[in-house]
């Protein structure tokens, strides 16, 4: 059984193209449906909170300006959906319906991204998250951490460019820990469709409890013949080594487990600043 539903949050920015391409690439093999959701904050929240009373006309102007901005962003997002759907051969439908190709629906919801993400992640098999930049507001980072840790759904953090394909040549970071195992089982639907799956054995943690052999056996039961490779890190951070390996081997998706409890994630993303500053070159599937 394959992926059924992918959540693709949109904001009206140029990142929407990357989010949609990533979602469509993952949706195609199993004819999944992509729930493209334009999330925008309530225009009334554009009113700044202040001790000084604000004249009603000013309030109205602020709300109107926010509404104009919202309409423009919605239009841009909708356009991004049409363009991407045409390019990927995805049919846009108004009511979710099983079809012969992958499909997408468009909807708009109002509210804080953090709150809305719960809604969109609810019945999704995975959530595609836009690539992040160093100068993004904290809210973006918080939203990412939230969707990863609170919804229990796998999240694909997009690369900073539109991918040609995703999930065809997959690398799975493996340190033998519980979170790596969790990521493997969570990614199984994607791995089943991949042309190639490689387990990247990272110097195991002291609490490594699942061997790479056991991982390969589990994958074999799912009809997946996985390769394995090893990376040794002495001075360089594991995260850098992983990305280097991904580059060299041409992976179009990297699978990693955990957040906060995983040395792998910690070393790739470090603290908040490092995390925001990192530009993943390939999409990364993460599960908490």
């Amino acid at each position, binding site marked *: 059984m394959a992926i059924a539903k992918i959540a693709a949050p949109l904001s009206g920015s140029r990142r929407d193209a990357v989010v949609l391409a990533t979602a469509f690439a993952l949706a195609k093999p199993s004819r999944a449906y992509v729930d493209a959701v334009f999330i925008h904050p309530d225009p009334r929240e554009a009113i700044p909170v202040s001790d000084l009373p604000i004249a009603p006309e000013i309030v109205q102007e602020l709300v109107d300006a926010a509404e104009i901005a919202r309409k423009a962003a919605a239009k841009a997002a909708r356009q991004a959906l049409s363009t991407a759907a045409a390019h990927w051969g995805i049919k846009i439908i108004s009511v979710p319906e*099983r079809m012969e190709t992958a499909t997408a629906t468009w909807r708009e919801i109002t509210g804080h991204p953090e709150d809305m993400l719960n809604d969109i992640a609810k019945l999704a098999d995975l959530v595609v998250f836009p690539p992040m930049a160093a100068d993004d507001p904290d809210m973006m980072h918080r939203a990412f951490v939230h969707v990863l840790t609170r*919804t229990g759904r796998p999240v694909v953090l997009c690369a900073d460019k539109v991918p040609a394909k995703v999930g065809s040549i997959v690398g799975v970071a493996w340190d033998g820990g*519980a979170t790596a195992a969790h990521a493997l089982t969570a990614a199984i639907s994607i791995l089943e469709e991949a042309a190639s799956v490689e387990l990247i054995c990272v110097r195991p943690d002291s609490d490594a409890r699942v061997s790479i052999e056991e991982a390969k056996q589990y994958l074999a039961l799912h009809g997946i013949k996985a390769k394995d490779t090893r990376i040794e890190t002495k001075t360089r951070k594991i995260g850098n080594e992983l990305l280097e390996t991904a580059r060299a081997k041409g992976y179009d998706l990297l699978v990693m487990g955990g957040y906060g409890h995983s040395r792998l994630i910690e070393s790739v993303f470090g603290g908040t600043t490092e995390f925001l500053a990192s530009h993943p070159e390939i999409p990364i599937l993460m599960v908490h």
Partner: protein
Amino acid sequence: MSIAKILVPVDGTPRDREALDAAIAAAKPFCAHIEALFAHPNPAEQMPVLGVPFTPDVMGALVDANTALFTAARERAHAAVAEACRVSGIALLDKQVRQDSKVTCTFRAVMGDPPKALAKAASLTDLVVLHPCAGSPAAFEAAIDVVLESHRPLLVAAGAVDPFGKALIAWDGSMAASRAVTAALPFLQHAGWVEIVCVCHRDAEMPGTSEIADYLKLQDVHAALKELKVSGTSIPDALMDYAARSRASLLVMGGFGHSRVRETLFGGVTNDILRKATFPIFLTH
């Protein structure tokens, strides 16, 4: 997610057969592989604490006694697995091998702390089947926690497993219930009848069901809807009562995120539900 591997702990007690039969019934629609796992503690570490050091002779005798107990239990467990396989016409293999067209089984005995052994084995499996009376209530609850913490789905075999029977989904619109639904999808697709059941207090609002109904329809699962308003009974009791009366073969429900939260907020509710059930329950984190 497809179901290719099912884990069933066995312990050498008569319950093993029921647990195995449940695992076999669950495996059939998917031609899955079943791993029957027997775990026993290290005989040298199971010493009674008396506050007095033992002499080497006494220690030796205790270790021997423990070893004999564990060996006997392991042999009983292995016999139960062999018999269950024989009766169902399933191959009991020496090692896990993928066979597309039929169910296969392996028996594995490990030495180690049983909850830890279960956690490790559960981390790379698609479903864990547990017998509701396995061990003491505390041991059962510990086993559930272990499985849910490994984020793997759990099938509590509280009655005969019939993958083609009637499946009920306990729906309250929560993230937990949603995760149960997506994880249970392979079973929902095989079920002969699927019903979304919402139970709430008389004065409360029913959760929305259009999202889940749409989601299921997309997966070729056509589900009926049952809304139950209750007053005077608890929601879990009303749910279990309805499921029993409607002869459900499976109840799909979201578990609770954290066992401590569960204990605090719900006391023995989950345990009550699970131990009183007369039909299988599919549970996720």
